[in-house]
């Protein structure tokens, strides 16, 4: 019981920090920190979506960054064609990610284990090469989004604080949704499939159909992160879909604690802050980050959430 309290307290503290961040930024005049955390919150959203299939569903997708790109390109391409309304851009981004996830999921779910990791990776690489070939939309060089999505009257995405809160709202909304899903009958079936697929099938659940729906939900959520990311950087390029980016997302999930509700957020905050912090000390920050990851894998089972749990039991 006590263990729950420590991780709960730290989570609450982190959330309070995220909510109050613009206030700190305003008081201290530190604009950079708001920009940094907007990015962190968006990638935390992507990590949370990956966690839904990886942590709860046991589906190790190594191509999740593809949705970041698809969501981003949906916004960028529509903007390029003169359709600036967010009411069109965002639904299109979500629909495109969902469609991609449906096709990829249907094919990938025929395999399992390492093969699943590799096939999702391969499909993401395909998306990467498709984007590289889009000469009309910048090709290799990427596409500049000159105007952020227009939600006229409701919210102004060019306003740093408003945009930050939009991203944070999306993140919390997605986490709430994941919480509802995980505790629903549907979510319990998916988690049951993770533990013992054969048994679940024997009981009579159409395993693949449940997993596919979960896969599509996760991809759609990550597409939302992609649409936000394109607005944040005013730019989208094939590089967002490169496989090392999918690796980054995986790292965030595992670092924070796979299969926990707020673990991926924790992981994203720690990973990206660490990256920022180390890169300020030394240009060669990855020299420290790399072995650190290794140590986390070797000694930090269950990620930060697991660690907090152990401290609690202490």
């Amino acid at each position: 019981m006590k263990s729950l309290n420590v991780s709960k307290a730290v989570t609450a503290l982190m959330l309070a920090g995220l909510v109050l961040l613009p206030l700190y930024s305003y008081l201290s005049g530190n604009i950079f920190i708001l920009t940094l955390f907007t990015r962190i919150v968006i990638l935390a959203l992507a990590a949370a979506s990956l966690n839904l299939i990886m942590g709860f569903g046991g589906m190790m997708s190594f191509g999740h960054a593809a949705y970041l790109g698809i969501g981003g390109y949906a916004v960028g391409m529509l903007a390029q064609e003169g359709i600036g309304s967010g009411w069109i851009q965002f639904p299109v981004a979500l629909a495109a990610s969902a469609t991609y996830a449906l096709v990829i999921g249907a094919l990938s779910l025929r395999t399992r284990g390492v093969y699943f990791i590799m096939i999702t990776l391969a499909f993401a690489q395909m998306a990467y090469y498709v984007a590289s070939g889009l000469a009309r939309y910048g090709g290799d060089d990427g596409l500049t989004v000159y105007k952020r999505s227009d939600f006229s009257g409701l919210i102004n995405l060019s306003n740093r604080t408003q945009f930050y809160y939009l991203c944070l709202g999306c993140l919390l909304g997605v986490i709430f949704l994941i919480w509802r899903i995980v505790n629903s009958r549907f979510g319990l079936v998916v988690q049951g499939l993770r533990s013992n697929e054969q048994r679940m099938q024997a009981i009579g659940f159409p395993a693949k159909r449940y997993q596919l729906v979960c896969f599509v939900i996760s991809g759609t959520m990550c597409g939302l992160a992609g649409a936000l990311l394109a607005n944040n950087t005013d730019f989208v390029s094939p590089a967002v879909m490169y496989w090392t980016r999918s690796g980054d997302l995986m790292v965030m999930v595992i670092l924070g604690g796979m299969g926990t509700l707020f673990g991926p957020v924790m992981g994203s905050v720690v990973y990206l802050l660490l990256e920022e912090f180390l890169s300020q000390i030394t240009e060669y920050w990855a020299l420290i980050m790399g072995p650190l990851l290794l140590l986390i894998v070797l000694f930090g089972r269950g990620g930060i959430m697991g660690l907090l749990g152990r401290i609690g039991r202490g």
Partner: protein
Amino acid sequence: MLLVVEQFLNGLQFGLLLFLLAAGLTLVFGIMDLVNLAHGSLYMMGAYFAATFAAWTGSFLLGALLALGATLVLGIVLEMSALRHLYGRDHLDHVLATFGLILFFNEAVRLIWGPAGLALPLPGWLTVPVPILPGIHYPAYRLAIIIVALLVALLLYLGVMRTRIGMLIRAGASNREMIGALGINIKLLYTLVFGLGAALAGLAGLMQAPILTVQIGMGENILILAFVIIVIGGIGSIRGAFLAAIFVGMIDTLGRAFLPNLLRQVLSGAAASTAAPALSSMLIYLLMAIVLVVRPEGLFPANRR
């Protein structure tokens, strides 16, 4: 005709190079059940070592030999210091830990050799075109790669199929607990296999070095290709890796060479020349997707777990 033969040989050469990389990867995966993303880093290290040693010694061959030894040692050190502790852990742990190693190696290379790439110049006798068929010449170095890689493939095959160590390796691949129980020093065996895999990756890297520039992150693209190959071939199967590597090398090379012209028949010139590079890069992933849809365990699954 000339172009077809040349591209065919280029495809073969690239395929064999990919095989060297994939063989190490699939050995390590098949025997130790370790997903090693840092395999591409060993490929990169092989290239950097070769460029450095060749510059020091002034001899390409000596540099290559020293680089081969250096990657072998590096592989053994890596296995003993870090990867040894990952056996028996979740595949996801492997992915994460070796992802960390990629970061480390890329950065270490940047620190030691600087951000700019290196060049590994070829000695004169390897740059001359060699007549292979009447009227058809092929660069000596690419021919040398084909010969060396074929020799290594043969040695690897004989080594795994005909020697005692090979027997242990095969036994280890099908049942790890059993060969441990039979009193085989499984720790040492694993270290050796990993070292061998590292040396194969290093060999691929140092042979590719004179063709491409030696640069940071050069292992990452080709690592994915190697993964595609072992997945198509069936994880843990050397024979599968060999056939899949040749296949992928051919498709990739021939696609890049002939797809633009093929597309030009159906599309306008501009559209064809923009679509072709993307499409030819995608070809092998398409192939992999098709193979996995038809045979989810690859073409030649080594053993069922």
